[in-house]
């Protein structure tokens, strides 16, 4: 989780990702951010996030993103 927060902080240093709960709805992460984030996650966590998983619920918060990573790793 710490590594994920670091990746998110690289994108938006001004945001408190441990508290933010609607990263998409609040306009914090846009499509360019999401793709950059996915590229980072894929190389850091050795998972592959497919396009069908790119839905607002999976990127709403740091916890949701982390849960997605764990689920993809498990599947």
């Amino acid at each position, binding site marked *: 989780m710490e590594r994920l927060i670091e990746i998110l902080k690289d994108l938006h240093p001004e945001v408190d990702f441990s508290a933010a709960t609607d990263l998409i709805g609040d306009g914090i992460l*846009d499509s360019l951010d*999401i*793709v*950059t984030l996915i*590229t980072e996650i894929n190389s850091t966590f050795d998972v592959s996030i497919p396009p069908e998983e790119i839905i607002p619920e999976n990127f709403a918060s740091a916890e949701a993103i982390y849960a997605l990573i764990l689920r993809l790793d498990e599947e």
Partner: protein
Amino acid sequence: MTFTSASFLLFAALTVLLYFTVPRRGQWWVLLVASYVFYLFAGVEYLAFLLYATVVSYVVARLMQARADAEDAFVEANRDRLEKSERKAFRAKEKKKRFFILVGGLVAGFGMLAVLKYTGFAAGIVCAAWTGMGNEPFEIPDLLLPLGISFYTFQAMGYLIDVYRKNARAERNFFRFALFISYFPQLIQGPISRFEALSEQLFATHAWDATRVRSGLARVLWGFFKKLVVADTAMIAVKTLVTGSDTYTGAYVFLLILLYSAQIYGDFTGGIDVTIGLSEILGIRVAENFNRPFSSKSTKEYWRRWHITMGTWFTDYVFYPLSVCSPMQRFSKFSRAKLGNAIGKRLPVYVATVATWFLTGLWHGAGWNFIVWGLLNCLVILVSQELTPLYDRFHAKFPRLVASGAYGVFQMARTFLLMGLIRSLDCYRDVGKTFSLWFSMLTDWNLPQLLTGGWRTLGLTGAEWCMLGLAILLVFAVSLAGKKRPVREWLSTRPVTFTLCACGLILLILLFGAYGIGYDASQFIYNQF
């Protein structure tokens, strides 16, 4: 049968009457028959293309669904016997098979669109190269372009991708599916709906609800006002400015940017208001396509607010898959290794952005002006992205200025003018000519000529100019007032004010709208896409 024609009003009234008269289980049948009758009015010859898109996407989706169901059943039955890695490998193999079926469906669906919409454009390019080599020119084919084909093809293809991704289950009933593709209020100019969202609405039963019907009617009326009073009036001056663009340079180009912004806003949002209002009367919620786009402070924000369903279509089905596909991920690793982390990680995203905007431009029309339009939008977005650190430094240095309302207004005006400038490629069509006309705004100082009488030559009388200005102000005021709560909602709590406003709007449309016997209200711009 345009939305603003008398025949459409009669057709819609009859449909609503039938819809609430038949047994509720049969309501969707009324919509299906009405949708095909509506499309028949556009031309019998168009019907084959709508049926083709429907049959192809229905069959392909059913094939993918059958494979997906078999895959799930197999995994479930063998859960204890198969290792995790074996299950993963099996699912990956099955996904690949579904992918081939999907590709077949996409080629068949987009292939038809490509042949009808882009053959003339492609042949024109080949012909230009051919004659450039000293040969005789050949005849460019002029193929039929069915009304709304870009919209219903995109809706059908989006559905196929959703079924492939298991984000939607394929519809078993062919006629229900046919209604999803052909639902007449949104058939020819969107919004581009998702199956999961719209089907639920279409196939549910709906009771007559006077409050809802009144609210829907108000929205239809507001759409008529925007189209007939704002868009169709502005169109007269826009047409004059475009046909006489050899003389209407300099300040006139700036005026065209303002007028065409008003025209396309009134035209497109007005049409969508009719779609959403009519659907509301029927009890069907259709996705919103606009969210006060001219209040955007950046191009990125503008594209989140303008033609929203098209933007999300391209983001979900083109930009994301392209950005995260294996070759692009490999390119990302390669570019990071060769160019460093900072540039390397942005490069693949930017490549995907350029490709997406190129296709967005092409979706709007088969012409260089549309491609350049798409790429210029892309350029502005990418340059803004690159300049973000600079903006951040500026914002940190002048926090009071940035927090002031004036700075917000400046950002909105900047975005509005920039988008308007690029949008003018839509009007002039010829890319070289458009660029030279933009340049003329810096060289031809003819503002005094425009103000001292030039405006009289643009096809509108003094009274019509005043009426257009006031109508635009009214649209602006309603948009501003509806920032926190839609004006219709507020009005519905005041029945007398509501009725007065509705009557006032009807009066304004009848008095000032480009409407009436002998006058054919112009086609909606987006119907032609």
